[in-house]
């Protein structure tokens, strides 16, 4: 096999991945594990027991300052006013003036005027430039936090594994976290969030401590998982992937993300809000749906969809669902299409059922 190019960035767990026999790939300039042998086995581990993902390539930023809430209120399509309790997380898109999605992110309110923001690795440079530009005129400071490693531990046994690693004092705090809440404890920053449709934690620790944490999780029976399983897990859970299911060319309303857009109160203006209101009035032309195919074959991104001879859209993310043992996809189609359509797989059209973009939650088919 050819060597990976030298210029790829490495996370603090790179050596641990290699020792575990990971197949490493270039993911947005980072050398990351695709799988450690079988991505299907890793997928099942998360649904049935517990698995963990090195997500240290993601970007963690700190926001602080008297205007930080007002700034985020104008920056994000979701409304930070919904963050009523410290530690609460909010998922949101960050839009351009046309309502297109620059990135999706999670913002945690840490109390007072302090926030933490986690954004995608692929959009790092663009995001940071955009967020800094929008800061002008606000009294707040946004800085990327260096030296942080992040591991997502997910699955029905994930909580117990992470709780077992904590000191008694920390455990008491973390054990009481509701879903979508986070806390700072002596070991690090721990959030009950994830990208798999399972319960679990995302754990941020200093880079120099992450190998120890990783090994403790391995000893507790948590399976190392790569990007391959991460993608099929989020696909089953109907969670959108930036760059595939939404881009700068699509609005959240066309991406199955209306629930993350706070159009009320109407007096709150945010970047892209005007475009979204206009789209709402004119009618949203396309929608994001789930596709489930009963036959063989695998739906993959960019495959075209048809109703009779009319091309009605395309697959934005597709793959094989290890839980359902058949192929599932997210697709963007014209808003008027209901019921069935045909997907063109390798030159052949096959009927496929259109449904909700959600297939599996908490280990069960939905």
């Amino acid at each position, binding site marked *: 096999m050819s060597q990976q190019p030298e210029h790829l960035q490495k996370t603090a767990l790179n050596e641990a991945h290699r020792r575990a026999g990971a197949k490493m790939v270039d993911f947005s300039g980072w050398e990351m594990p695709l799988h450690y042998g079988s*991505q*299907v086995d890793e997928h099942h581990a998360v649904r049935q027991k517990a698995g963990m993902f090195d997500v240290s390539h993601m970007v963690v930023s700190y926001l602080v300052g008297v205007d930080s809430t007002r700034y985020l209120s104008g920056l994000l399509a979701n409304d930070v006013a919904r963050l009523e309790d410290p530690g609460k997380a909010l998922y949101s898109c960050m839009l351009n003036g046309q309502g297109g999605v620059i990135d999706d992110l999670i913002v945690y309110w840490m109390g007072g005027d302090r926030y933490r923001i986690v954004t995608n690795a692929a959009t790092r440079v663009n995001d940071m430039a955009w967020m800094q530009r929008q800061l002008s005129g606000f009294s707040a400071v946004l800085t990327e936090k260096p030296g942080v490693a992040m591991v997502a531990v997910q699955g029905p046994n994930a909580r117990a594994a992470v709780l077992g690693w904590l000191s008694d004092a920390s455990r008491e705090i973390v054990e009481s976290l509701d879903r979508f809440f986070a806390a700072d404890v002596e070991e690090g920053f721990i959030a009950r969030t994830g990208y798999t449709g399972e319960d679990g934690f995302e754990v941020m620790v200093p880079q120099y401590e992450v190998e120890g944490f990783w090994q403790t999780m391995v000893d507790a029976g948590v399976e190392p998982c790569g990007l391959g399983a991460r993608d099929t897990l989020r696909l089953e859970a109907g969670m959108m992937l930036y760059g595939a299911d939404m881009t700068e060319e699509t609005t959240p309303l066309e991406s199955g993300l209306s629930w993350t857009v706070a159009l009320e109160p109407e007096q709150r203006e945010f970047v892209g809000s005007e475009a979204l209101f206009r789209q709402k009035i004119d009618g949203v032309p396309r929608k994001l749906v789930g596709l489930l195919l009963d036959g*063989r074959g695998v739906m993959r991104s960019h495959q075209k969809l048809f109703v009779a001879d009319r091309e009605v859209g395309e697959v934005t993310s597709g793959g094989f669902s290890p839980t359902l043992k058949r192929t599932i996809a997210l697709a963007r189609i014209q808003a008027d299409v209901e019921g069935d359509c045909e997907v063109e797989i390798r030159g052949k059209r096959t009927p496929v059922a259109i449904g909700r973009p959600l297939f599996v939650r908490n280990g069960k088919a939905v």
Partner: protein
Amino acid sequence: MSEIPQGLRYSKSHEWIDDDAGTVTIGITDHAQELLGDIVFVELPEVGQQLDLDGECGVVESVKAASDIYAPLAGEIVEVNEALMDSPEQVNDAPYEAWIFKMRLKNPADLDQLLDAAGYASLAEAE
């Protein structure tokens, strides 16, 4: 390094071929299954199908991509491994046991065109 048993013959398109007096058993190599990743569907040829050299005779679909299977030799399909329909992962777990189809060769001398283990090893290495 992937496993390449002695005693089998190999094609440049990563099939292994086990000859038994002009009837051959064919599967994909360990190297091929490693490149493909988890295999989720195998589409088999039909018994009785006549194939030319390099004729399309099935599909192996993995989490990563769909790959056509090409006949490494000319002949007639005499048997297919239907167990792979329900458990395609056998190809990952035991690539040299999970055969895909058997064919009766049109011209057994064609076997000489194939690679031996050493020849295939250097091909796989170069990739």
